[in-house]
Each structure stands twice: as structure tokens, then as C-alpha cells.
């Protein structure tokens, strides 16, 4: 089971109450996503995408030791 870092940004941080955490994740991003929904039920109604190591991920993704996984709500720069 990979050890990963989770980063929470923008409005997601209000849900998690954390900026980041270290955790032992399941093997895939989809499985991690399901775990996060159980742990933070308010994520269910939130809008966000995932990045793994600073790259946006669409669809599922195999996780590896040391991965940095971020939950990114809609961007609003400028």
C-alpha cells in the first residue's frame, strides 16, 4: 500500500479542515477517492479534480509510494 501525501486547496480545505496529510492509500486513485468520500462526506457535493504529482488526472490512476495527490476545486486566478 503506497504512502502518499494529500493536499487540499481552496474550498476543499474548509471541508477537510486540513491543508495536507500523509496517509497510506489504496492502490488506485479511484479507490482513494471512495475512501475520502467516506472520511469527508461533504466532498460528495463539492466540485474538484485530482492531480497526482502536479499533473491533472482524468479517469483512474495507479498510485505509487511518495505520490503527492491534490484535490483541486475550480481554478479562480487573476
Amino acid at each position: 500500500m503506497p504512502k502518499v501525501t494529500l493536499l487540499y486547496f481552496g474550498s476543499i480545505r474548509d471541508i477537510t479542515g486540513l491543508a495536507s496529510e500523509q496517509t497510506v492509500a489504496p492502490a488506485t486513485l479511484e479507490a482513494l477517492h471512495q475512501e475520502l468520500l467516506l472520511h469527508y462526506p461533504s466532498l460528495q457535493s463539492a466540485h474538484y479534480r485530482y492531480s497526482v504529482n502536479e499533473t491533472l488526472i482524468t479517469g483512474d490512476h495507479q498510485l505509487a509510494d511518495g505520490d503527492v495527490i491534490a484535490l483541486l476545486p475550480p481554478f479562480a486566478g487573476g
Partner: protein
Amino acid sequence: MNKMNQTIKLIDGPIGNEAINTEIFQTSEDTQNGAYALFIGRVRADDEEPSPVEAIEYSAYPEMVAIVMGELSEELFGHYSHLTGLRVLHSTGRVRAGEVSLLVMVTGRHRTQIFEALSSCVELIKDRLPVWKKELLADGSSRWIE
């Protein structure tokens, strides 16, 4: 033309006149670029419910900002062959109404493509840069802009 002539800096708090001056005048020894086009974004005191915007609190994912900016630059330099430079300053943290939170500067020898390149760059930044903002209203309430 140096396609790597691009930079993005995240600035803690508002972008002051010194930072803007540095961007504009640091290249004054470069006598090859005749055209500079800039976008400066300021926080507006929009009259929201229940009270006006007093400030915006910006947060960013800095490592990803650098990577995304590299991708945007490659796209822009690829598309606008006359572009010779691209510099971006973006605030993080609190920026009050009237203060500057974004500076985008593009350069070219002549003004060919410079305005389109500037406009495209601003749109791409707003669409793709991993930055978030929360409006802080005068009554003490706040809300995320998404």
C-alpha cells in the same frame, strides 16, 4: 528568439509599484523589444450581498503553478511566433480592494500579435492556473469564488 524567456512569480500580498517597475524596467538594457503589452488586474470593491468586497484572499499550489505556466508558455510561444517574452506576477494571500493581484506582460520586437498574445495569456491563466480566491466582505463574512 528565446522561447524560454518566461517567468512566473507568486508574490505574498498585493503587487506594489516597485514590483511592477522591476518587470517593466529590468529589461531596459534590452534595446531589441519595442513593444510591451501589460494586463494589470485589481481587486474591485464589488457591491455583493450582504456587503461590499473588502479584499480577496488568494491561495495557490505553487509547484503546480510553475509547471502549468511552463505548459502555457510553450503553447503561447508556439502559437505567437512574434512573442519574445512573457512574465507573470500573481498574488497569494490577502489583497484589498484597489490593490493589484495580477500582472501579465508580453513583449515583442514590434507590436504584431502582442495584444492577442496578452489576451490569450490572461484567459489561459484564469482557466488553468491552480489558484483560488475567497472574497472577504465588509461584514466579516467570506465566500469562495468558483
